[in-house]
């Protein structure tokens, strides 16, 4: 068995979550690596959209920007930002991958600011970009993030992107589309989902060598646990080979793990 780091593990786990024949709006970094790996192994028909306007590329290497010319490489379409966003708004986009500085138990994400005064933030982050858009439109929100107490918080300082907001029914009440919302969270410790009536984050699978205690210790809110707790299979040799040789040979992303 080949050794692997946490970044490689997260990418491999993420790559296995996408159904073949589905579509995904992905960002640079981990999402692109996961999307490329998924296409090569599990979802050859995964249709990739980038928020700046490209769709259906044959990705030669990792883009640095969701708008750079890697995203249009041999793509089927090179269009507009609204073309991608409107495809999402009319229901065409299955998955999106998002991140953030904070996430709460309902999957709400903060990538805007830390502090309690919007106009005088302790720390200011970039803001939504397309995150709120894709998190509002896409059917299933995937989050890939390192697991840490300061990230997994009881209440995010700012809801940049909607998870289940205040709980079951809140998205629909807010005016968001039916059937959309947080789907899975993939961390360096576990796979989590929201597949319970409370729409709260729950552990469903522990990565190799990780204990439930460890996950709870790194989570800043009361974590639910699925009835049947699985073990995440570690990255296969093939996954790692493709990831290292074909997808990220320069270690741009996996070097951070």
């Amino acid at each position, binding site marked *: 068995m080949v050794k692997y780091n946490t970044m490689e593990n997260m990418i491999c786990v993420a790559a296995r979550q996408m159904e073949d024949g589905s579509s995904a709006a992905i960002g640079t970094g981990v999402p692109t690596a996961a999307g490329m790996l998924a296409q090569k192994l599990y979802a050859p028909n995964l249709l990739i959209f980038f928020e700046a306007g490209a769709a259906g590329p044959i990705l030669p290497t990792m883009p640095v920007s969701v708008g750079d010319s890697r995203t249009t490489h041999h793509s089927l379409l090179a269009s507009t930002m609204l073309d991608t966003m409107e495809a999402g708004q009319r229901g065409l986009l299955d998955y999106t991958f998002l991140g953030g500085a904070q996430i709460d138990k309902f999957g709400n994400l903060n990538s805007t600011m830390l502090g309690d005064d919007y106009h005088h933030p302790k720390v200011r982050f970039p803001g939504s970009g397309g995150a709120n858009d894709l998190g*509002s439109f896409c059917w299933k929100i995937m989050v890939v993030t390192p697991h840490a107490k300061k990230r997994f918080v009881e209440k995010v300082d700012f809801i*940049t992107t909607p998870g289940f907001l205040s709980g079951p029914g809140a998205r629909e009440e807010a005016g968001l589309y039916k059937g959309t919302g947080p789907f899975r969270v993939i961390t360096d410790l576990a796979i989590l989902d929201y597949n319970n009536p409370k729409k709260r984050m729950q552990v469903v699978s522990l990565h190799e060598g990780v204990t439930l205690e460890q996950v709870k210790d790194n989570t800043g809110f009361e974590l639910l646990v699925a009835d049947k707790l699985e073990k995440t299979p570690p990255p296969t040799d093939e996954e790692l080979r493709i990831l290292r040789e074909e997808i990220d040979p320069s270690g741009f992303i996996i070097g951070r793990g």
Partner: protein
Amino acid sequence: MEKLKVGKGELFMPYDADESRHFFKEKNKKLVNKLTTVPEAVEKYIPDGTYIAVGGFGGVRISTSVLHEILRQGKKNLGLSGHTSTHDCQILAAGECFDRCDIAYVIGLEARGLSRVSRKYFESGKVKFTEWTNAALAWRYKAAAMGVSYLPCRTMLGTDTFEQSAAKEVLCPFTGAKYAAVPALSPDVAMIHVHRCDVYGNCQIDGINISDADLAKASKHVIITAERIVPNEEIRRQPWATTIPAWCVDAVIQVPYGSFPGCMEKEYFSDEDHFALWLKKEKDPEEFKAFIKKYILDTKNFSEYLELCGGISRMNDLRFDELLVNPNTK
């Protein structure tokens, strides 16, 4: 019936359809030669206080030469549309040129990391800001391009992003569905870098258009920088490739490599070393000041900047990068 929510953010650019229509009525529609220089265009169209928007996507197809000139001329109190504003925001923040910003995405440089200087500027209290999303800002341009004062969309709802925006909830008169109404945004000036255009400003863009066709139509004035100027006949040969027509455009400047260090489809890839240099220099305020002085303030024009960054030889490498060609293998 529940009360419809109203974002409490400041609307920096209220849209008045009649005023806007009158402006476009009076705008020149003749085919006149609009060639000028970057300093003249900035001098003429961007007085202090102007609300500007940058085409492209932060580090992709941006009008770097115009942004540098804004710094060089020491413009102040600009308004900025932060529709994925990465390196553009970074340049303008370095000069503290703007004091209000509609934010969708600023400070960050996508996968490259965050700009310390931009972050500090946004945390300094010197900038007023209102929150949006990329799509919301793109639809705000779209509304102005359509000539309507708002568009309904289903983003931002239920979040603090909405709360800190200047959007308002509305109900669909047919289905009763709740929408976020976003107000039209008509920037005073848009600066857009394109692959080619004629002297009248008829532009072609290869690759993704992002929001630039809408932005050009939405804006009161448009400054075009182009990799190359082409004869009008070339535009007329394939009029369906025209993405920005002359009647939107006020100034045309030929600026080869004009998106550097940003990427330009089929021309050159982004210079990641140079982006890294910016981020490195930002770690030390004094070094950064000297860097900006040397590379921007003390250079006469964009060509001098390009020379400092490696000149034609470096541009040649970036062309190989863009085309995924390794010049060392046959």
